[in-house]
């Protein structure tokens, strides 16, 4: 107990100093708390409402949006906006939600949980609600494969008998989590989308019998409605189903047992529609009315480190998170870009290492990701920079992209030299979560070049 009190006081002091010296987005108070008391997460008192968000893709987006809505409701919320989802970030978040006497000072905490470590951290965090975004192909080094991630999250939620899981019924992997938990499912009905065939091995066979599954329909990759022709395993049914999505009007209809209600959408991407479905399901399960939720969604925005757009006259310039090494995220963004009709140039900043960094990285993901999608007439040029530029050069050629449409260079500082604007309507700078600032600098240089023309 004494150890916990010392840890709490020392880390609270540290947090106070960090907040007052402009270093609020820093996990070090959490690191200190855990160093002084390794079971800090377990011992720290939790606010009345704790929402945990885990899964492969969409954690930070959903966590941000949930916390924004709670703020709009006038709740005091502890949340790390910068996507700190390891133990230190979680300790930093929960530390901020208690007084020096370990009494809750906030109404709620929204805690992003790394999926690989969820088996350890979820039982400590003891959330009331766990949103699992999806389980799909990710970085091989960290996450190995979906079966491992499924077993890790399942282990974590099995120790939360009182928590309600918010699950994506259209994800054939995560929807089978939590056999003994309370669950609420969200789904999107068939939108008759023209979904590309994919190389990404998200859900190759029925987990029960190993037969190749049949999809009634897909929204993207393996997100959709399936059945197994051999053993009969099939998709779960949604409690909340997005029935009609109108991306032009940015709205969708959601059917539930009490009727059908209209909600706004925050973007024109299907994957963000799923993020909104998760949020609607959470807040409806908590007890908010559809009208209140819809009103709040009108006022929330996607986090800027995920997508940002600037209007430069004739050209729109986007920075867009695509995540290198994360096969499913990169393929989904590539599919979106292939379908988005503007004439565009793409800049890929997806490597983990740049410049003379002596580290190396695996390139297996290049051959899992659907670079073939980028062989599209609306994509006029692809500029790639980073240590692995020679691997991209080969991969883009194998994807069938004409060599004259590609530029592969080592030094990303030279990217603006290759950007052209003739007949171009949009420029997308695709970045990894580790290259947000790098992407911003490149974007600013390109913007300067375009403005001076």
């Amino acid at each position, binding site marked *: 107990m004494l150890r916990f009190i010392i840890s709490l006081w020392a880390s609270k002091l540290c947090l106070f100093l960090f907040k007052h010296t402009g270093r609020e987005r820093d996990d070090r108070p959490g690191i200190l708390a855990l160093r002084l008391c390794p079971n800090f997460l377990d011992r720290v008192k939790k606010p009345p409402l704790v929402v945990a968000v885990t899964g492969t893709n969409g954690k930070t987006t959903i966590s941000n949006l949930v916390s924004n809505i709670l703020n709009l409701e006038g709740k005091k919320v502890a949340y790390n906006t910068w996507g700190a989802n390891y133990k230190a970030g979680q300790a930093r978040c929960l530390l901020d939600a208690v007084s020096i006497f370990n009494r809750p000072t906030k109404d709620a905490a929204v805690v992003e949980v790394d999926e*690989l*470590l969820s088996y350890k951290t979820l039982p400590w965090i003891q959330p009331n609600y766990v949103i699992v975004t999806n389980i799909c192909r990710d970085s*091989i*080094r*960290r996450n*190995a*494969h*979906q*079966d*491992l991630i499924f077993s890790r999250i399942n282990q974590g939620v099995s120790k939360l008998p009182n928590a309600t899981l918010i699950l994506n019924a259209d994800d054939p992997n995560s929807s089978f989590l939590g056999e003994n938990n309370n669950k609420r499912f969200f789904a999107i009905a068939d939108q008759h989308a023209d979904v590309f065939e994919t*190389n990404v*091995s998200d859900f*190759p*066979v029925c*987990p029960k019998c*190993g*037969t*190749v599954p049949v999809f009634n329909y897909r929204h993207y990759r393996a997100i959709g409605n399936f059945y197994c022709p051999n053993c009969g395993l099939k998709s779960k049914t949604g409690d909340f189903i997005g029935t009609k999505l109108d991306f032009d009007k940015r709205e969708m209809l959601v059917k539930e047992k009490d009727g059908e209600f209209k909600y706004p959408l925050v973007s024109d991407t299907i994957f963000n529609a799923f993020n909104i479905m998760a949020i609607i399901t959470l807040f409806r399960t908590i007890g908010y009315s559809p009208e209140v939720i819809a009103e709040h969604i009108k006022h929330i925005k996607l986090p800027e480190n995920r997508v940002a757009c600037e209007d430069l006259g004739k050209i729109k310039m986007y920075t867009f998170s695509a995540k290198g090494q994360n096969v499913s995220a990169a393929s989904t963004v590539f599919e979106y870009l292939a379908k988005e009709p503007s004439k565009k140039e793409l800049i890929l900043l997806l490597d983990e290492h740049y410049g003379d960094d*002596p*580290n*190396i990285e*695996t*390139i*297996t*993901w*290049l*051959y*899992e990701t659907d670079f073939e999608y980028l062989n599209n007439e609306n994509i006029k040029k692809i500029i790639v920079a980073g*240590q692995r530029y*020679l*691997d991209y*050069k*080969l991969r883009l*050629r*194998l994807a069938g992209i004409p060599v004259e449409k590609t530029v592969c260079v080592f030094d990303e500082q030279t990217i603006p030299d290759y950007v052209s604007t003739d007949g171009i309507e949009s420029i997308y700078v695709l970045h990894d979560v580790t290259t947000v600032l790098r992407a911003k600098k490149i974007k600013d240089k390109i913007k300067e070049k375009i403005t001076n023309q």
Partner: protein
Amino acid sequence: MKIEVLYPELSNLYGDYYNAKYLAMCIPDSQTVFTSNNDKPAFLSEKVDIICMGSMSERNQEFAIKHLMPYKDKIKELVDNGTFFLATGNSFEIFGDHIEDDGKKIECLGAIDFYSKRQMNDRRNCFFLGDFQTEKGEDIKIVGHKSQFSFSHGKATEKPFISVEGGFGINLDSKNEGVHYKNFFGTYILGPFIMLNPQFLKYLLRSMNLNDSLLYEEEINNAYADRLKRLQREGTEFLMGAE
């Protein structure tokens, strides 16, 4: 020239299918058969020149073993007769005697004399650099990446496919990586092994009495040379943490 890819749904976890795809791109007039796990393998009814398999999750590996067990004798015959096999990631374990996993023993095809041990709570990652010595004494540097829950042991693991220069071997006590028996090449190196190792691919093509020129040869060689240079740099960290 016929290439058979066994169970592409199960064994394409890390982009391994590109090995067969690129191989086919480099061999004019080749035919690739993708044998789904609902189908009977082509090698049962016709001559197949090379059989490719790739990485899979441990659960899917057990499905693949179940599918192949009825053809165990035929597979052993093909291996012994010198049919070419390229098995990347944990797929080569299927051709050994058995896999041990937490007290459970999973019978495998028994085509080659080795066995594997799984530890699902202990995943190991490394970059890899090694040497493959051809029958003519030519040294080919092999590069890649390994990420695994299992290691292999036994007689066939004592004769190296690749000698380890950086990273770990077929088990943590071994300086050998992979299994090479007649024309069977199995390695824990994951995913696009051939894309990473154009010199090995050229050797493979020559061994199959084929022209060894590669598609986009300049590009693939440049990428290989760059990776080799980085891996050979003094102080390269080969071992990587998993969590």
